[in-house]
């Protein structure tokens, strides 16, 4: 009997919210998870992503909303009755029990027959390739091995949902990459449904089928990795998705650009740029201009700038990143621009940068610090 995932069709979160004594940690989270999906909750620390996960696990009671599993409410069930597996950031392995007994714990709690427990524990341990460490205590294992025990302990119960709370954040960079592949492999081969919390956009983009970006307890955008990567809904999402150059500016064109193909002109300091408007960026309103470092190109002598976007500045910092260089260029008005180039300029060189208007995103400035009220609702429809 091989380990498989518990069967269900959909998990629905309706207007889920959690406040801590007046402070709203999570507001109005609407999300429908289909069986077999890998969902990443992404956001900076304090954005409510761990709160959302703990609410799902039943470790925190909800203050608003409902959680439904195939139409049945589960938010009223205590944690131990929900049957979700959870992998903790600190692994939370029982230090006094061997690897085997850690993995067997949940099965014993269900009162399964001993023979079945032994069989399933052995399978789970071989699944994470820890056969030779089965009799060891967690303290005798490395971080990566402990992480694998934690995963085995969660999946051995064949849970309908596996919740992972920043499971890789305590590992070193190389191990993190290996374990990332391992988690995706287990997710696919066991047919798990996984909800994964992380603050690492690269991790989220590479693992998840869909991402939920949170900020200050509110959903900013829900979408597939490429949707979020290419079409961030607001500049906070853009900021989080690796648009390192986020510049304040003023819209010059009166036209309200909303469609993706339109262009609008923006004044940023002393520069005038042409970009693609996202949302309502009417004339003379304050905007944020977002450009990825890899979309900025150092212009060779004699080449024409793309879409008339040309910025001249002095090279301030050059970092070696293997195949390419991360360069910081300072413009005459003091703005710092992050650029990725295949060839290294010298510090102090004067360079001209350009970017295709398609790759220059113009967002409303959102001065209140909160996204427009309609943003989360629209995001769900994506």
């Amino acid at each position, binding site marked *: 009997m091989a380990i498989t995932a518990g069967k269900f069709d959909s998990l629905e979160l309706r207007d889920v919210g959690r406040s801590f004594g007046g402070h709203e940690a999570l507001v109005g989270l609407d999300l429908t998870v289909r069986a077999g999906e890998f969902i990443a909750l992404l956001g900076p620390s304090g954005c409510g992503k761990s709160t959302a996960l703990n609410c799902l696990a039943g470790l925190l009671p909800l203050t608003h909303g409902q959680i439904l599993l195939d139409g049945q409410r589960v938010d009223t069930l205590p944690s*131990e009755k929900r049957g979700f597996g959870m992998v903790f950031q600190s692994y*939370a392995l029982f230090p006094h029990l061997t690897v085997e007994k850690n993995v067997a714990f949940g099965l014993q709690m269900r009162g399964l027959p001993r023979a079945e427990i032994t069989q399933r524990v052995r399978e789970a341990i071989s699944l994470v390739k820890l056969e030779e460490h089965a009799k060891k205590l967690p303290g005798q294992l490395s971080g990566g091995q402990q992480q694998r025990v934690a995963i085995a302990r969660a999946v051995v119960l064949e849970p309908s949902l596996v919740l992972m709370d920043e499971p890789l954040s305590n590992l070193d960079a190389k191990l993190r990459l290996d374990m990332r592949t391992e988690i995706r492999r287990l997710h696919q081969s066991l047919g798990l449904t996984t909800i994964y919390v992380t603050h690492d956009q690269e991790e989220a983009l590479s693992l998840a089928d869909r991402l939920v970006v949170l900020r200050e307890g509110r959903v900013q955008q829900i979408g597939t990795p490429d949707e979020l990567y290419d079409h961030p809904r607001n500049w906070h999402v853009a900021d989080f998705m690796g648009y390192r150059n986020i510049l304040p500016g003023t819209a010059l064109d009166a036209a309200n650009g909303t469609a993706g193909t339109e262009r609008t002109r923006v004044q940023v300091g002393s520069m005038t740029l042409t970009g693609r408007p996202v949302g309502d960026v009417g004339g003379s309103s304050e905007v944020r201009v977002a450009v990825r470092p890899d979309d900025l190109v150092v212009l060779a002598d004699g080449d024409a700038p793309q879409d008339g976007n040309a910025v001249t500045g002095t090279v301030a910092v050059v970092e070696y990143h293997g195949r390419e260089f991360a360069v910081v260029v300072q413009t005459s008005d003091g703005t710092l621009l992050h650029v990725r180039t295949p060839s290294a300029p010298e510090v102090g060189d004067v360079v001209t940068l350009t970017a295709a208007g398609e790759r220059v995103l113009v967002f409303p400035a959102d001065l209140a610090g909160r996204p427009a009220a309609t943003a989360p609702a629209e995001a769900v429809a994506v």
Partner: protein
Amino acid sequence: MTAPTTSGARSTASLRHRLAERGIDASLWLMVPALVFALALFVYPFSYGIGLTFQPGLATQERWGGGVFANYVAFFRDPFVFDSVWITMRLALPAALFNVLASIPVALVLRRKFRGKRFMTSVLVLPITLGTVLTAQGLLIFAGRQGWLNRTLMSIGLIDEPLQLVNNYVGVMFSLIITGFPFAFLLVSSYLSGIDPSLDAAARTLGAGWWQRFRRITLPLLAPGLATTFILTFVLAFSVFPSARLVGDAMGSTRVMSLMAFRAFGEQNDYAMASTIALMMGVVELVVVAIVLAWRSLFYKGSTGGKG
């Protein structure tokens, strides 16, 4: 060091450096004050006391025989003296056990966050600041024959005769719990805070109910701490003296070993016998401590992941 080292060559480091590698350096002088105190106030008097036990008084030698061991013969043969071992045990063991066991649920509850938690903790710990004498006086006033408790119970008609709560075994037990519980509670709380709370959360997500979580996770991780707490409260209770005298029945049910030692010393001027009883007190305590430590060694004692 940049100099190339050939294999098997002698270390080129100075003697001072090599000693420091083994932990021998000038900072060892910081131990001198503690050593002086330990020698002057513990090692010498203790050895002197042991010496005294082998110099029995003439009366003791004549009555019990045994030469230089006459004091020990007297200790084991004289039921008036030897029974005090059981009398003390009868007080100290249940008191220590109660203090440790009662601390567990209280510490578990006070681990959670709730309004008034700090106040509750303060109230529970406050008695640690009262001396035994103050506690005894309080008990006499509160629970004596004419105390508030008896007068209240009689005035509301619950009892006809005042309850005998002091000047007996019960009084001393109360006193041991009042002074010992805060101590046990503080220790158990700190051991409990050393256990990573996410272990409990993990057990919950694995389907364990509260009793299973307590029995399978919290208790095994807490057990070494409970053993230590038990040892400390036991030793504290075993050497009970003021309350045994003030709220106990000093010649009857609370005739504890320390009272016997004091009697030999203060009333009979038999320093040798007093030393013998004091020494045997230590031996009995050591036996109990050894048994508890042996039991403790059966448990996992490593890191428990919390803030320790």
